[in-house]
């Protein structure tokens, strides 16, 4: 490919690619995102290639490995074009049938079609699946269509046209104004207005840097991973536009080492962009130079904090500093540095292309646009969900997510990762945006949404997050290092049955102290999971402390399993599955559980189809 020397040659390339795409050739797109890959995309892909080769059809059928479609629960996902047939949970042994009937014959295989778990109706097309129908996928939509390793796929769907506008039709000030008017706020957690950040970085003199925060550390959130893996060029394009606006010549992407596929696809994307003349010297003949480098993080949660991330970029341990001077003034290498996260950068080309007015028409008064949430935990349809800001928790969890599996009760939804909080059922109709979440004591964070049901112990969840934060605290400041440790000790005692009266108020006091006096965002938000669970689930704390009982059956010292003789049918399933041989009984007669042998692994509880294993 020859370098694109000017804007017109990119237009011509895009036109020719579109024409080629419209010929309606047979195309099989197979999701190769990390979720589907964990369920075996690799095996399905190999089987499909082999079968096509065996039938001599490799030339007629294009097999495209795409990025994440979002519906990760049902992986691996296959979509057959031009019909658009949608087959979830494809297995390698189904490949011969798919090739024979659907690929050769254009016939829909009913047994493979997705069935709505609620209505039991067959849904042959991806767009009609309720999980997708209620979403508005302006950022994430192209993920399932394009091959992330092929820059031409991205160009064909309009990629890099926003860059053309930014370079040739707008001044840097106009770009910043457009972003400001769009109301875009940082998607990494803080929700700071992006345009204002750009403007203040541009005002500072020095070698300015543009940085992408892809150190997605929030456990339970993986939209940044999916965007980088599935549509890396949208992030790259956003960064180049940001560089034009801010006046920067060098950019960095700080990405987790634990995301090897994201690193690989991003590396390829940068190489391709350079080859096509969209990165590097004299971009599209505009005279503007910009390059992007990758830096791989080392798995430290605190490096998501801006000053820690920049310390890490400089090759030091990622310890944050007090922000008397903001990073837009003095950040990376003591120079003005503008840091935005992956999803924020991916929003930029969309805003430039479709205009600030259109973008600002989506969402709520102070939170514009859409947000990608990772809907995970105890919910039927797990996956990545992109909805307009202000969509209610109920719509997300019940209409898109399909509710709670196994007819269990909803208990809470955790948002904002370790810095956020747990939101109980009474707020299900809350419209999710930056401000509403803050009002109930939680936060948007990077968009993790972990659904919890009756089997989740809220004290254990609080303990879990503090355990996480204790490990991840950088140890510089005392309130965070010691405060979290003390709080964790109290919580561990409560979970092990050694809770005392007064523990709850001590936790609240300590939490308030850690919040107020810690150096960086990690510490100041660390008590949130504890404080919100105390606020909304005080009765569970009290049950642990006073009655020495864990109502959810999680804290091992505080419950035991019993088999209810009235509901037990004697099917023997639990007895067969028990790894300890602790369950005995005759067929079709109520079984007994030997408490001395039981290790409380919960295998019987999960296995019983009749709800006869009880938590006492």
């Amino acid at each position: 490919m020859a370098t694109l020397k000017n804007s017109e040659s990119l237009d011509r390339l895009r036109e020719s690619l579109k024409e080629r795409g419209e010929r309606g050739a047979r195309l099989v797109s197979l999701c190769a995102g990390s979720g589907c890959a964990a369920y075996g995309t690799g095996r399905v892909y190999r089987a499909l290639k082999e079968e096509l080769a065996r039938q001599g059809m490799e030339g007629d059928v294009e097999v495209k490995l795409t990025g994440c479609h979002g519906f990760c629960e049902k992986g691996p996902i296959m979509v057959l074009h031009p019909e658009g047939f949608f087959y979830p949970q494809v297995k390698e042994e189904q490949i011969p049938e798919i090739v024979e009937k659907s690929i050769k014959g254009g016939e829909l295989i009913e047994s493979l079609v997705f069935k709505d778990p609620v209505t039991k109706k067959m849904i042959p097309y991806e767009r009609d699946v309720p999980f997708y129908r209620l979403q508005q996928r302006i950022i994430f939509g192209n993920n399932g269509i394009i091959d992330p390793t092929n820059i031409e796929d991205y160009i064909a769907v309009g990629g890099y046209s926003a860059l053309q506008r930014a370079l040739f039709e707008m001044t840097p000030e106009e770009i910043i104004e457009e972003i400001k008017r769009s109301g875009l706020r940082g998607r990494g957690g803080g929700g700071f207005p992006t345009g204002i950040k750009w403007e203040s970085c541009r005002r500072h003199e020095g070698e300015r840097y543009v940085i992408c925060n892809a150190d997605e550390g929030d456990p339970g959130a993986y939209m940044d991973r999916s965007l980088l893996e599935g549509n890396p060029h949208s992030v790259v394009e956003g960064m180049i536009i940001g560089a034009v606006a801010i006046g920067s010549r060098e950019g960095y992407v700080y990405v987790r080492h634990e995301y090897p596929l994201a690193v690989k696809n991003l590396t390829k994307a940068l190489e391709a962009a350079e080859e096509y003349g969209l990165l590097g010297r004299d971009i599209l003949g505009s005279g503007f130079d910009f390059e992007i480098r990758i830096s791989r993080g080392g798995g430290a949660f605190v490096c998501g904090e801006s000053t820690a991330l920049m310390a890490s970029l400089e090759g030091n341990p990622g310890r944050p500093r007090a922000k008397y001077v903001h990073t837009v003034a003095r950040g990376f290498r003591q120079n003005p540095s503008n840091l935005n996260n992956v999803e924020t950068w991916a929003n930029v080309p969309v805003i430039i292309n479709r205009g600030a007015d259109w973008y600002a028409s989506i969402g709520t008064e102070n939170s514009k646009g859409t947000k990608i949430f990772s809907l995970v935990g105890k919910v039927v349809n797990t996956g990545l969900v992109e909805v307009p800001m202000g969509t209610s928790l109920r719509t997300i969890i019940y209409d898109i997510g399909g509710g709670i599996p196994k007819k269990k009760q909803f208990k809470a939804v955790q948002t904002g990762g370790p810095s956020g909080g747990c939101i109980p059922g009474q707020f299900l109709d809350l419209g999710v945006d930056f401000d509403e979440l803050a009002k109930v004591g939680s936060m948007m964070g990077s968009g993790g949404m972990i659904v919890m049901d009756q089997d989740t112990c809220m004290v254990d969840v609080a303990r879990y997050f503090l355990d996480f934060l204790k490990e991840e605290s950088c140890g510089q400041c005392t309130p965070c290092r010691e405060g979290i440790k003390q709080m964790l000790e109290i919580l561990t005692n409560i979970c092990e049955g050694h809770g005392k009266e007064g523990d709850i108020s001590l936790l609240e006091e300590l939490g308030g102290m850690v919040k107020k006096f810690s150096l960086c965002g990690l510490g100041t938000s660390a008590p949130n999971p504890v404080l919100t669970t105390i606020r909304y689930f005080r009765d569970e704390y009290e049950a642990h402390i006073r009655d020495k009982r864990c109502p959810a059956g999680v804290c091992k010292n505080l419950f035991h399993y019993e088999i209810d003789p009235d509901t037990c049918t004697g099917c023997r399933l639990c007895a067969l599955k028990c790894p300890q041989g602790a369950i005995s009984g005759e067929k079709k007669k109520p079984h007994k559980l030997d408490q001395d042998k039981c290790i409380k692994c919960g295998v019987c509880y999960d296995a019983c189809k009749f709800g006869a294993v009880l938590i006492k």
Partner: protein
Amino acid sequence: MFEPLGGGGEFSPRIREWDDMQAPFEIRLEKIEEIIEKYHGDREALLMILQDIADIHNYVPPEVVPLLVERLGVRPSLIYSVATFYKTISLEPRGKYVINVCTGTACHVRGADKIMEALKEKLGIDEGETTEDLKFTLEAVRCVGCCASGPVITVNRETHGGLDRSSALKIIESYEKEIS
């Protein structure tokens, strides 16, 4: 727990026989020179250099520190500081297969601790330890970003999702077979 670094003795690697993999254990300094060269001896790339070294040896042998000091022009204390700060770097030998049990929130509520318990029992080691025969290292990772498929474990670069106790054990057995 914070352990001060004294004298360097704590981090001297225990050199053990390691099947056909890398036995007898040898540090390939020319490979490490190549890595440093790839990053143009840039001290800002220290963390990535350590990661690349770990990709060859499965850990960062403290014997490479003097070379890094010379080539990057940094103090040994910075190298130890970076190596101990970041979780992806280990200064102790690790197994041929590094098992990471994801303990992210989504995996946690779906029973990651039960998977961890089962693997500890199976391998006879605790979290963060390596089996005597240097075949397996068991570690916990805070989220690998496969939250929809939880509970998840990764073995080296392969990800296995939707696990329960017995399927997790089966996966480990399949790796055991691969070695033997």
